[in-house]
């Protein structure tokens, strides 16, 4: 990451996350969702994105964060993964942020567990840290805990 790169940012439990802009298909407000019984709990459901059925992944659960407060609507960040489009459910959408390559740092060794594999590192912004998410890893539909056990 020598040059500048652009990130689509969003918030989860007050933390700032970002995915590379070129991996993002679109950002949309909350859509009606169909639950998938028996599916891993990170799968929030299926949404109809203009005729395309897209799986929605609850990022909070995927990242082992506290569940979203009842009644608050999640936003959809639709990303392109190897296996087609996936919608990541987030609390709130942030700006598109442009960062220099030298502000990047790998996650500290003390960050452990399944979450570590999903967070590529952080960009040190002026006032806060931007967590860089690995899209492919984030789209995997196993629960955080299950990945840790090495299912």
């Amino acid at each position: 990451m020598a040059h500048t790169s652009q990130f689509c940012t969003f918030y989860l439990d007050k933390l700032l996350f970002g995915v590379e802009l070129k991996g993002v298909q679109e950002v949309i407000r909350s859509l009606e969702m169909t639950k998938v019984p028996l599916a891993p709990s990170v799968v929030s459901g299926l949404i109809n994105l203009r005729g395309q059925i897209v799986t929605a992944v609850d990022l909070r659960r995927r990242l082992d964060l506290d569940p979203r407060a009842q009644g608050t609507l999640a936003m959809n960040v639709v990303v392109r993964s190897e296996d087609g489009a996936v919608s990541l459910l987030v609390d709130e959408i942030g700006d598109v942020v442009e960062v220099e390559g030298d502000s990047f740092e790998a996650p500290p060794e003390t960050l452990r567990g399944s979450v570590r594999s999903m967070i590529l590192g952080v960009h040190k912004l002026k006032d806060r840290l931007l967590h860089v998410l690995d899209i492919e890893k984030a789209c995997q539909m196993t629960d955080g805990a299950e990945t840790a056990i090495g299912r």
Partner: protein
Amino acid sequence: MNETDIVKDFLVESYENLDRLDRDLVGLEKNPRDKDCLAGVFRTIHTIKGTCGFLGFNKLEKVAHVGENLLTRLRDGQLALNPEITTALLGMVDAVRQMLKEIAETGQDGEVDYPELRETLTRLQGAALAPTRAANDTASGAAKAAQAEGFSPGEDAAGADRASAIQPDEIGPAPAVAATGTNKGPAKESELRPRETVAETIRVGVNVLDKMMTLVGELVLARNQLLQISNTVEDAGLQAVSQRMNLIASELQEEVMKTRMQPIGNIWNQFPRTVRDVALGCGKEVGIEMEGKETELDKTIIEAIKDPLTHLVRNSVDHGIEVPEERVKAGKDRTGRLILRAFHEGGQVIIEISDDGAGLKEEQIRKKAVERGVVTADQVARMTEREIFNLIFLPGFSTAEKVTNVSGRGVGMDVVKTNVERIGGNVDLQSTPGRGTTVRVKIPLTLAIIPALVVTCAGERYAIPQVSLLELVRLEADEVTKGIELVHGAPVYRLRGRLLPLVYLNQELKLESDSRQAATGDGAVNIVVLQADERQFGLVVDQINDTEEIVVKPLRKQLKTVKTFAGSSIMGDGRVALILDVLGLAQRASVVTETRDRSLTEKTSEAAGTEEGKQTFLLFAGPGDSRMAIPLGTLARLEEFPVSHVEMSGSQWVTQYRGQILPLIRLTVALEERRNRLRALQAPPAADSGPIQVLVLNHDGRSFGLVVDRILDIIDDRADVRSAATRANVLYSAVIGERVTELLDIPAILRNADRNTTESTLATRSAEVAN
């Protein structure tokens, strides 16, 4: 499909394969340990070799064959990949490409058969693990060979010229590419594609069709919304436009759908030739039979299963069926039978390839599996026969005694399995020693449209493929406690005297609501009687909505682990609904166990099915609580319409049903005394009454609905205690289900209804004239 078509397909396919081969080989050079990549290369060459084998391109086959031999050694780790080998292999790819070009232009695979290249490839095989020779030497040798034979400048330029003569607009770029093509390896793929002079058909990428399909689906949804709006707005212009939009969208949807569907016969048609050639090659006599040729499959699926099926067919002939002498000795016909069968079942397409050959030898597979280290001796000892048979689908497994040209390289069956599984299907094999082998390929209807029953459970809708549906049973609240019994805790329902195991959808899916509680509380219980793998079970749901034609969309790869769902679909209101996989659900609920005893189930179903002389009747209530029946076979569907959907066409009740106007005949009117009939006929439906029950019947190519008061039951009975009819439109009275029941005369009802309508129209007219 004639032979030139096959050749054309082969060419297009091979060009694609070769391009991938170039990429893979180069990638492999960078990372020689990539086993998957190597296996991919091997399969590609194997496919090319196999196909040109039966198309009769012997020179091409020869070249591919030596290449494959070399690759086999690489794959088995007897040889390590080095630049020398890569160069030689790339030389082979170039040679194959050159020969394909010859085939495209002349229909023959050329004069040269590349002795030098083949020698190089053979020598490299022998070089084994001690590559002492100077790498440069052979590498340049192979390159020279490729250049001298494959890409002599004159020939290539001539080819390009010929091509540009057909398509003058490409005169500019073509020679330029040809010029560069002479001194480096492969020329651009587009330059080598066979030129079409007549363009009556266009090859369109499946992804384009997919996109179109998706967009049309969206268009249909938008149309539905528009129709709803236009119904509430009083605007003639808007209504006219939305009406036209409606028709156009429906037609467009139909046409787009058609572009994707193909009968499986399209790929089967080449099998007789395949079978003949393979049989000839190994001195066998084989006849091929096909059933269900017209079974339509989505284009993507057709393409994906073509190779696996070809493999299976070749395998059956090569390994399954014995040579004539052996067959005669075993008391069989000299000529072996190969049967291909395709049909829809449970929302899936099933393709069976059966032969009446020697069957699989369990002992031999056991031995081979252990020998090859596929499984341990311990594991094998614990396996069932069926599990052992299915071992042959593992990579690196082959039971053929010797490696023949056709098969026996241990590549066939695992490729079949991978390819079928890639499209979400599965392969199963059954074999009886001495009697034959049947391979059953089950594939989903990825993008097919299927009729489905939509049900609700815990507030979510689920679609059940109609093919698995047998009937619907509704138990009113007061019947529930009596109707549902427990066999040591397992709920069952007595359906016409037989116990039907009940499965509660909400429990199986771990959903919040509890149908069982709802049942004991206030509500009635809805049982959907389903068939899964020869077993019946009742699925209890909260609510039964309607039947709909749905577009099946596959689930994401990672959700495929949830075996209870076959896919998803977008409903009329734009929301997503899941499609239940009836077999998966049945397995989950242990209705069918995966390793069930087949013979047992067959026996029981036989015993149940063939009680002689019995007929199935639909029973319903006639006027004055009389019991009436029709044979179930005459019934197309049971429907329920709200009274508001009944319209008057003249004096005839009609309703709009599946894009048609369905005339409705009321049973009460049909059975009325003639003199009262006219008056009754003209009465419009009472607006405040509840929904009407309609039996949709087909007779002589006409559809009509028979309005009845109440549907009672479906009963199997001989109905041999009979007496003559006592009123018009009735065939006879009979004892069905231990009670006297009148059998309706449907043709007579139709005839009389026609007459009534005419009379009533005349009566109305004369009344008007009189006024």
